[in-house]
């Protein structure tokens, strides 16, 4: 049976860097409920990373992600001076010296990936949705996180991808293939939205119309969450959902603000922030 929710895993090594020349090598590992990333930074620059499904083997996810990130680099764990764990499973990073929340790490990570002009970060992860305000250094000044309800999270979108039999990598683009934006489904509760969608499919709605209706409802809900702390430019999106062009387009439209274009994979923001904290902690002698 095809697994429509399965997004593409990846790893990467910076082609122009040599870890042997580095003064400070640090790592950040973000163990989320759905995905895990490991990032290694040399002197504050991105060296290598991995992005994979956490799976049900959570205690080993951190180690697996780290091993994959280091693959082919010749760098081994013992040469990394400091590792910070973050994410839902941050206490399950056996080789980390410290655990810091994904909120602080996404703040720092967004500052690195998008630059010092970012003030509002929206992170939509597998099972949560966060709105974060940061200053020019990436320090958090205001945040709220919703991880109680599946609506507005990656999981909600996965349920729909599964319902429609469309790969999660394609739902975003599919949702834009409508001539006219359909009315949004009435509830963002994923359970109720799903039964509503089943009804629409039976009425003959094509897949793209159904996914557009759900994406529209989801984007609106995320906007109301963001508006609770306000959206100040520049605005940036991190996490898996940043790759869903259907959600991003609708968010930008409703907020009347364009999201910054990322330089790196948006899912690594948390791990990048963690690795940067690790570097700061090494420099402070902690």
């Amino acid at each position, binding site marked *: 049976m095809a697994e429509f929710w399965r997004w593409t895993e990846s790893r990467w090594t910076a082609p122009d860097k040599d870890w042997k020349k580095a003064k400070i090598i640090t790592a950040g590992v973000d163990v989320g409920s759905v995905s895990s990333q490991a990032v290694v930074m040399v002197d504050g620059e991105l060296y290598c990373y991995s992005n994979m499904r956490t799976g049900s083997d959570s205690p080993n996810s951190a180690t697996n992600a780290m091993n994959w990130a280091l693959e082919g680099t010749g760098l081994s764990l013992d040469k990394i001076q400091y590792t910070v764990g973050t994410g839902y499973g941050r206490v399950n990073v056996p080789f980390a010296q410290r655990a810091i929340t994904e909120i602080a790490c996404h703040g720092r990570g967004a500052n690195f990936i998008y630059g010092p002009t970012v003030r509002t970060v929206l992170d939509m992860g597998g099972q949560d949705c966060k709105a974060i305000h940061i200053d020019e250094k990436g*320090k958090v000044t205001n945040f*709220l996180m*919703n991880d109680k309800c599946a609506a507005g999270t990656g999981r909600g979108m996965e349920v729909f991808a599964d319902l429609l039999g469309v790969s999660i990598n394609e739902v975003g683009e599919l949702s834009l293939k409508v001539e006219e934006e359909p009315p949004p489904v009435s509830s963002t*509760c994923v359970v109720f939205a799903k039964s509503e969608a089943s009804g629409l499919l039976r009425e003959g709605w094509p897949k793209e119309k159904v996914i557009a209706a759900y994406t529209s409802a989801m984007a609106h*809900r995320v906007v109301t969450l963001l508006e609770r*702390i306000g959206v100040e430019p520049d605005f940036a999106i991190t996490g898996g959902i940043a790759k869903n062009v259907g959600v991003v387009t609708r968010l930008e439209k409703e907020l009347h603000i364009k999201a910054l274009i990322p330089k790196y994979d948006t899912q690594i923001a948390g791990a990048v922030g963690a690795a940067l904290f690790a570097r700061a902690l090494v420099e402070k002698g902690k």
Partner: protein
Amino acid sequence: MIANFGYKDGSGEYFLSIDTDKCNGCRDCVTACPAQVFEIRDEDPNDPFREIPVAAIKDSERKKIKYACGPCKPVSKRPSLPCVVACKQGAIAHSW
């Protein structure tokens, strides 16, 4: 920073905010809350460079905060909230 603990679901938005710049870790909120949703953390996991303890909502409570705070928020004749009254720094606010 303003730390908002809580959630939004189909039935509404429920967030309890703690202004950590105002919070001095005095524990008055921990004592005042009848549902024991507050705790004091020696290290702020959201701010690794903070030097003093900080108040936060327990992880076991924040996803049920609407229910935990329920008894203090009866549908009619709502009194002042004990936690808001107890905090001399004025660091606590409720969104509902």
